[in-house]
């Protein structure tokens, strides 16, 4: 290794640069895995969702309502009835900002007197949900409350908060259950807290800052989502059976009806792209390490044929030669790891990741990334050296030393 010191230094530098980048990449992967939390108090299988819209009054197909008893809400009721009569539909419901995988955020603060202090649930995403929508999404409480119980609480106009993923520790929602909460610090706007539900996130990767479920407002047009639960295995049949006329009643119509799976894919598109880009980059770096070690050690084997042949002639076994070649690569890796570790420790000492990224980042994430990056490098080094080392194993000492 001393003879090849220049080449070894360059390979070490390459390992350090690659190792640090792989550390970042694998740490991001580990963090995304940690963040990935599908909403487990809900069931989105066999659910189709769409936007509920009103035909503008200026549109040529707008129909005037005959009297004040008829309005957009009555149209929605008729539309829901029509949908529920579809043979493939189990239930249908409406909401305002009630669905996941949309990027609406309508936040509000809620406060509760807890003993001697007032706890405030800051900036909770307010999701207005009808009891029927509760049944479509099969909402459950974290303490085992059933869907029907939750639907009943919503019908009773109770507030159902969800535990945030990231809080300062001063909020204890368990103390909220059964108490009255003020809406936006207004003591005249009081809601009773029911059960604690699971979080309904905007994406499966977003740490929840806060969310509450409340009942729908009765005002006409105060909704924007519709969700339909179809019978298991009947999704395709439902899609094929639906005609444009089935999606409209009066001045209300459904737009962009699609499965919840499609919505989820679209919501996660940027994350998927990020994962794809990072995977490509990491693969490129690992391929570069592999090719670099393959090329360098191939040459070294050729240059060291007389030395290796002498070792064989002096009694070294094939596997000893093989292990010798591999160990040179591992020594390079260990040298690189020490430098990588130094940089990582320096970085972590200076930067608080949770504060920087405004998200709960457990302390094991960077170390998981480190372990994965070193493992990947080790794999590439062993893979790259394998062929030259196998070639070294097969040297015939008599032939190799013939000209010596």
């Amino acid at each position: 290794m001393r003879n090849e010191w220049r080449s070894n230094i360059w390979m070490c530098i390459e390992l350090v640069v690659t190792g640090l980048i792989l550390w970042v990449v694998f740490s991001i992967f580990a963090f995304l895995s940690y963040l990935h939390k599908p909403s487990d108090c809900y069931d989105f299988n066999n659910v189709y969702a769409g936007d509920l819209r009103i035909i503008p009054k200026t549109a040529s197909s707008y129909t005037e309502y005959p009297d004040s008893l008829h309005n957009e809400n009555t149209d929605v009721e008729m539309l829901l009835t029509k949908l529920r009569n579809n043979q493939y539909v189990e239930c249908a419901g409406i909401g305002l900002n009630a669905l996941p995988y949309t990027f609406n955020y309508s936040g509000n603060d809620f406060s509760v007197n807890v003993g001697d202090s007032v706890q405030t649930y800051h900036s909770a995403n307010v999701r207005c949900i009808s009891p029927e929508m509760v049944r479509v999404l099969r909402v459950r409480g974290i303490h085992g409350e059933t869907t029907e119980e939750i639907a009943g609480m919503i019908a009773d106009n109770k507030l159902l908060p969800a535990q945030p993923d990231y809080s300062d520790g001063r909020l204890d929602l368990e103390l909220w259950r059964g108490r009255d909460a003020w809406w936006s610090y207004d003591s005249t706007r009081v809601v009773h807290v029911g059960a604690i539900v699971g979080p309904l996130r905007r994406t499966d990767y977003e740490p929840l800052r806060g969310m509450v479920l409340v009942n729908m407002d009765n005002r006409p047009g105060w909704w924007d989502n519709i969700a339909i639960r179809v019978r298991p295995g009947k999704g395709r049949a439902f899609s094929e059976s639906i005609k444009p006329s089935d999606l409209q009643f009066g001045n209300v119509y459904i737009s962009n009806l699609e499965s919840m799976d499609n919505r989820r894919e679209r919501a996660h598109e940027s994350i998927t792209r990020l994962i794809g880009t990072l995977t490509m980059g990491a693969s490129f770096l690992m391929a570069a390490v592999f090719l670099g070690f393959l090329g360098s050690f191939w040459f070294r084997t050729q240059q060291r044929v007389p030395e290796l042949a002498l070792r064989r002639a002096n009694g070294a076994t094939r596997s000893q030669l093989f292990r010798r070649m591999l160990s040179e690569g591992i020594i390079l890796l260990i040298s690189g790891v020490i430098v990588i570790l130094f940089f990582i420790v320096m970085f972590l000492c200076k930067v608080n990741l949770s504060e920087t990224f405004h998200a709960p980042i457990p302390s094991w994430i960077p170390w998981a990334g480190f372990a994965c990056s070193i493992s990947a490098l080790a794999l590439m080094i062993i893979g790259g050296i394998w062929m030259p080392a196998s070639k070294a194993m097969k040297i015939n000492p008599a032939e190799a030393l013939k000209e010596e």
Partner: protein
Amino acid sequence: MKKQIKQILYDMRTQPLIAWVTVIGTALSIFLIMTVVMIESVGVMSFSPESNRERMLYGMYVHINKPNGSGGSGSMSYKCAERLYANLKGVEAISFQSDGAERLDIHGTTDETFTASVRSCDQGFWEVFDHKLLEGRLFSKEEVEAGSKLAVVSRSTARRLFGPENAIGRHFMLDHNDTEVIGVVEDSSPLAEWAYGEVFRPIDVISSNEWGGGYFGNIAAAILVEDGTDLESVRDQVKNRYAEFASELKAEGRDIIYHGAPFTQQVYADGIPGSNNTPDNSADRAINVAVLVILLLVPAINLSSMLHSRLRRRINDLGVRRAFGCTRGRIVRDIIGENFIVTLAGGLIGLGAGVLFALFYDGVFTVGGESVHPSLSMLLNFRIIFSAFAACFILNIISAAIPAWQAARMNPVNAINAK
């Protein structure tokens, strides 16, 4: 050159593994570099119907505050957009249009009801962007001001609405409004984010979804600056209008905050961070540069190491050449030249792979969450091909300079005697 190619072929025959490792390593690096370059280029280079992107400016948002810190920011109302951008000097054409295409339901004479990208715009839109009119006509200023229920549709949309029948003069339901087709234009790529649409309708100049005291709405301005006019002179005019607007708003107890509008194509492609922030993409640029440096440096280290090893095998022959009078400079040039040919070969493979990847792989280019594929003409242009050659050249210099210099410095006697 012939000798260099002979040397390369000899090396490939005697050391095929190393030769292929070199070519593959180079190809991989150039492939990734070109993918990054292509993604960047498609955001700024001109292609139909945005054929004059180098002369374009975009006015997008307005940010109005009250002294107590409350206020709002968002897209402009039509009145606000006219106030800030109409009748500027040095402007060839201006389009007031919706800030993005809406996905709306449309239904024609076929059984299909589908959502289409609908662009609301004024008559200036057709002067700013060069859509190819296939049939019929485009809407006029009078029709825009009258709020006529007319539409120009793209060729593929016309086919979906009416089948093989002639679309001109036919009616369809656009967002539940009975609308007449007056023109058909050629399909355009969604990568032309300002010009793209499947249906084009006159913008509603009267209401335009106004809010916030009539200052906000859903209008943006696309400005085509006259050839030869400095973009900064147009921006200075807009800045002055912002200052005049600020004086008027002061009387209402409000303040308008200037965030650098209108923006060039480059700034728009880099990303506008919301309606209440001034674009500053220096961090993104630094990351892009860092990515390119890494994509060049890491394979360069490998290639340098392998070249160094290859040159050690040729040490005798280099010593003989030096003994016969070959200069150090000549040896360096020859080695770099040989390496450049190999790098170029790998680079061409990498460029080809990059183009195929961009053309066929989903997710390289996305607009509004949908995967979009560019055309071949967008990818094979001077900027991209020049970037590929430049990348090969830089990679060659980085990987070959030091080994070539070291080989040239060797004492000829030691070189000839070396084993």
